[in-house]
């Protein structure tokens, strides 16, 4: 019973929980709202641990599949079709984990419309799990778009002074992209008479069709990742979002775009992906290098971390698209699996690390009400425990071995060397750039003599803050020192994916 509806529970429970939280009403019932949200997110996390434990390794088949009729219009059928494989399962676990962190992080900080705040994140959790679990494109699209609504609300209600500009920019960017994805999905649905994603994977398409579909997907996913040059919404959204919003945005929402590439672009349009891989690799490397330099120039900590996110996501898309380049230069695809797996590891790790970095900024912001680097200096003197966490996460962000931040970057660099020396060269520049912008910020904010009276009055983190930062640092170490279980979970799926996308889908003679 549990197994056969586990995914529905992972989607439905947070949605239900969100409604219950909303039902607690106004801020006079805030304590109840908080506890309810905490219980709900704990239960969901527990369920996703069950999902991880019962997940069968060594197969690329969809697991925990649920399939029911949903809508039928003429010959087109859309089903309630769920299932997970080695790509989506880790992302669902990550989502559950980060939601719990956000609920705890917002505990005392949010005093205004508490129930609505907590409910928004629970809704988001359910909808994001839906995106990762959906095997029906129509269902996927519903979750994909619906998920944006709570995020708009979070930024729009609890956001900073320029929140309206940021939400509109966010909305326009993402909506612009999604429309094209919808058209592509409809086209594919007409071809196969339904919205089954797995059927879309196997449908034969001509090169022209593939290229158009690829570009339509690209517009949707590139905005979400975000890839250069459609990334400028992210720093604004982060700056205006409350801490919890930033955490989910960085930890999960960016991954949706990357997930889209793996679930749609690569398997549905492998020939177009191959034909356009030069473009994709270039955009990825520009993200790594160009954005690395841009991050160096930032004065606002949240902007800096936002740019750092874009740069790190460049590794993800690089790992995805070097497959064919490896094939061309080596004559076989050894190393391609490592590239995609490295990208996946980078996604998971970036979830923890960027989430933790935003939480660190949040911890300081709650006390100082400033995100500007220049307002700080010598925080270590008054907040030594916090400083230890901040330096740890900064090191993880700079890709220090032993932390999770290293694993993905290392794998993608190893893999991209097989494709081309210069790809690896450009990617490896992050070793210097990433360390430069991250540690320079640490130097200016954390280290040094006490810069001003406000820093002098700072109080160190409380036990609640210690708890969530501690939990995240545990994850950073676990995945840094022992990433094998994560790789084992995804290996069969990714291996199968590479096999699939390195075979042409063109019709004979087409």
């Amino acid at each position, binding site marked *: 019973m549990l197994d056969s509806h586990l995914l529905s529970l992972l989607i439905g429970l947070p949605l239900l929980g969100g409604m219950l939280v909303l039902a607690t009403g106004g801020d006079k019932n805030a304590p109840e709202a908080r506890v309810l949200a905490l219980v709900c997110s704990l239960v969901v996390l527990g369920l996703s641990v069950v999902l991880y434990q019962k997940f069968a390794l060594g197969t690329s088949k969809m697991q925990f599949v649920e399939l029911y009729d949903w809508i039928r219009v003429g010959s087109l059928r859309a089903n309630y079709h769920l299932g997970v494989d080695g790509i989506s399962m880790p992302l669902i676990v990550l989502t559950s984990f980060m939601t719990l962190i956000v609920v705890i992080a917002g505990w005392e900080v949010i005093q205004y419309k508490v129930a609505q705040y907590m409910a928004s994140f629970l809704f988001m959790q359910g909808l994001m799990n839906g995106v990762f679990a959906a095997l029906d494109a129509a269902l996927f699209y519903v979750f994909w778009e619906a998920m944006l609504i709570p995020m708009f609300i979070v930024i729009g209600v609890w956001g900073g002074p320029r929140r309206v500009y940021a939400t509109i*920019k966010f909305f*326009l*960017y993402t909506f612009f992209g999604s429309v094209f994805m919808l058209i592509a999905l409809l086209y594919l649905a007409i071809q196969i008479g339904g919205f089954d994603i797995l059927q879309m994977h196997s449908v034969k398409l001509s090169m022209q069709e593939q290229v158009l579909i690829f570009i339509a997907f690209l517009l949707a996913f590139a905005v979400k990742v975000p890839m250069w*040059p459609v990334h*400028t*919404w992210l720093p604004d959204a982060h700056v205006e979002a409350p801490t919890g919003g930033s955490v989910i945005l960085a930890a999960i929402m960016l991954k949706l775009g990357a997930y889209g590439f793996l679930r749609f672009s690569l398997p549905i349009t492998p020939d177009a992906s191959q034909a356009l891989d030069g473009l994709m690799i270039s955009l990825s490397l520009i993200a790594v290098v*160009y954005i690395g*330099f*841009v*991050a*160096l*120039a*930032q004065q606002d900590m949240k902007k800096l971390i936002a740019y750092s996110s874009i740069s790190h996501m460049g590794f993800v898309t690089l790992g995805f698209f070097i497959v064919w380049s490896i094939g061309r230069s080596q004559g076989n695809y*050894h*190393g391609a*699996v*490592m590239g995609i*797996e490295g990208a996946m590891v980078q996604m998971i790790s970036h979830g923890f690390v960027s989430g933790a970095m935003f939480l660190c900024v949040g911890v300081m912001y709650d006390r100082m009400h400033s995100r500007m680097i220049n307002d700080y200096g*010598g925080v*270590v*003197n008054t907040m030594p425990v916090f400083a230890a966490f901040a*330096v740890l996460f900064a090191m993880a962000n700079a890709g*220090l*071995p*032993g932390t999770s931040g*290293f*694993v993905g970057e*290392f*794998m993608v*660099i*190893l893999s*991209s*060397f*097989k494709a081309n*020396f*210069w790809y*690896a*060269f450009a990617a*490896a*520049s992050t*070793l*210097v750039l990433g*360390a*430069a912008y991250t*540690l*320079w910020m640490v*130097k200016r904010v*954390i*280290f*040094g*003599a*006490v810069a001003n009276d406000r820093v002098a009055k700072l109080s160190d983190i409380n036990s609640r803050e210690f708890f969530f930062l501690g939990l995240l640092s545990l994850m950073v170490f676990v995945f840094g020192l*022992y*990433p*094998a279980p*994560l*790789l*084992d979970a995804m*290996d069969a799926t990714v*291996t199968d994916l590479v096999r699939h996308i390195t075979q042409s889908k063109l019709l004979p003679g087409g």
Partner: protein
Amino acid sequence: MLDNMPTVYLTIVLAPLMGAIIAGLFGKTIGRGGAHWITILGVAIATVLSLYVFKYHVMDSHAIYNGSVYTWLVSDGIKLEVGFLVDNLTAVMLVVVSFVSLMVHVYTVGYMHDDPGYQRFFSYISLFTFSMLMLVMSNNFMQLFFGWEAVGLVSYLLIGFWFTRESAIFANLKAFLVNRVGDFGFVLGIAAVLLYFGSVDYATVFASTAKVSGQTLQIFPGHPWSVLTVICILLFIGAMGKSAQFPLHVWLPDSMEGPTPISALIHAATMVTAGIFMVARMSPLFELSETALSVVMVIGTITALFMGLLGLVQNDIKRVVAYSTLSQLGYMTVALGASAYAASIFHLMTHAFFKALLFLAAGSVIIAMHHQQDMRYMGGLRKYMKITWLTSLVGSLALIGTPFFSGFYSKDSIIEAVAHSHTPGASYAYVAVLAGVFVTALYSFRMYFLVFHGEERMDQHTREHLHESPWVVTLPLIALAIPSVIIGGFFVEPMIFGKFFGPAIFVLPAHDVLAHLHAHDWKEMALHALGTAPFLLALGGVLTAWYCYRINPKVPAWCARKLSWPYKTLLEKYWFDHLYQYVFAALGRWLGKVIWQLGDVRLIDGVIINGSANSVGRLARWARQVQSGYLYHYAFAMILGLIILLVVFVPGLSGKMLALIKIS
């Protein structure tokens, strides 16, 4: 437990790690005493077991151990593991690292006595010991890189230990970033190893060098380069960062901002030798690339001579020792380039002892001087601190290569090896290492005379409080002075004349320069050296220092005046700091600002995003005006629309309309 070697190896690395974790996380609870006892215990366990491993592998000649501890990850059929390779090379490194670390732990009890960050400091140095031991015991490139970066992290934390000092947090950022430049090459080197060997496991890689040696790759189209040369040079770039070789040497002198025990342990004895160790470990690769060896030799030559020259003009006691370290690392690198890996590791070992000694002695002086580090305010200290004085003298004599002292055996072996080397660049290297001997003797004894002899130039208050340091400081000095004297004579026969390292180091028969050395035992080697060029040059250096700083102290100032341009060049450290800070770093920041403002803010946001949003707005304003509210405007629009639709959709109508227009 002792008969289960894997457990022994594991305990060697985990004992210091446990100490570090306990002192780091529970420092407040266990207090200062608890912190130093737990960490000293951890490192003491590591030291005792290292000595046991040394006996087990070196004296009892047990087989090489190569085994994995756990599988880090498997991806694409490639297994990345954490594991240990223990052979004679590892055994030597284990003893050097753990012993010097133990001495530094004990010394720290005295040196950091009043520091508020006491527990944190012990946690860091134990964490360092763990990282360095992981590095030297690794059996694969991935773990090597882990240790490599982990020691870099601890170095970063320790240089910036006094984090309120601007100079300290500038120096630690600089150290980390310069090291990262090296690691940039190192990572690419590892990636190349994986690509061409299909594994990052040492044993697998070294076993298949023959298969790869003939292959080429084209980084620049049309220029096929030997794969091994590219791999070795990329890896060596990593070594240049960690072992502070020119031109990535700039971070090491600044690292003196850290507390002195750190300078001894990390920035002299162990971490900075990681690059030397790595190249020796990779000898099966480097041997097959003459080009790479030549690069190694040239870089080492430049570092050995030119960094030594900088030591001549420093007034800060620690900086003199720091430049001396750079120069000695250069000697080790030259030896690597000459394929005299054994001599390089031998010098690494002797240097670890006498340089740690010199640093700790300098620290003892600094304690006595109330943290005054400028030698111009010292002098005559031999009267006040006998142990520090004598041990410093021992360290200096070892450093300049006085026969029978440990440094003599290792340095003379290097010079001899270079003399016999046929690596391209060896003849220049030979001149440079000989000149370096004079320079080393000069700056060493300049320091010695300025600190321990001559008039007492400190202020009245300091002079009244001058006294020898407590036993926790002097005991490590004595414990390091002993090996600084004897260890060279003891090990020169097996390491240089014998086959001490066995299969751990691979040398092509044609490159085996150490086989050409004349002497065959330690006495003969020392006696033979009297009267040779290196000895006379060292003697000349000491006498010059004696004349300039004891007999006629006006000479140095006169030299500085007469040779003002070279003097300024040395003072400014050849302007490398300026180059990096005002050119590279500034350019990076400038580039960031420019592309952000032009690319993101102006072009993407300004023109494309906000531009298109504005266009939509303008379109909407225009469209609003169409909806005027007047019925006859709408009626007109409807009629116009109807006509257009008719024209488009009714077949033939457009032709008839056109005809109608023509007729009228």
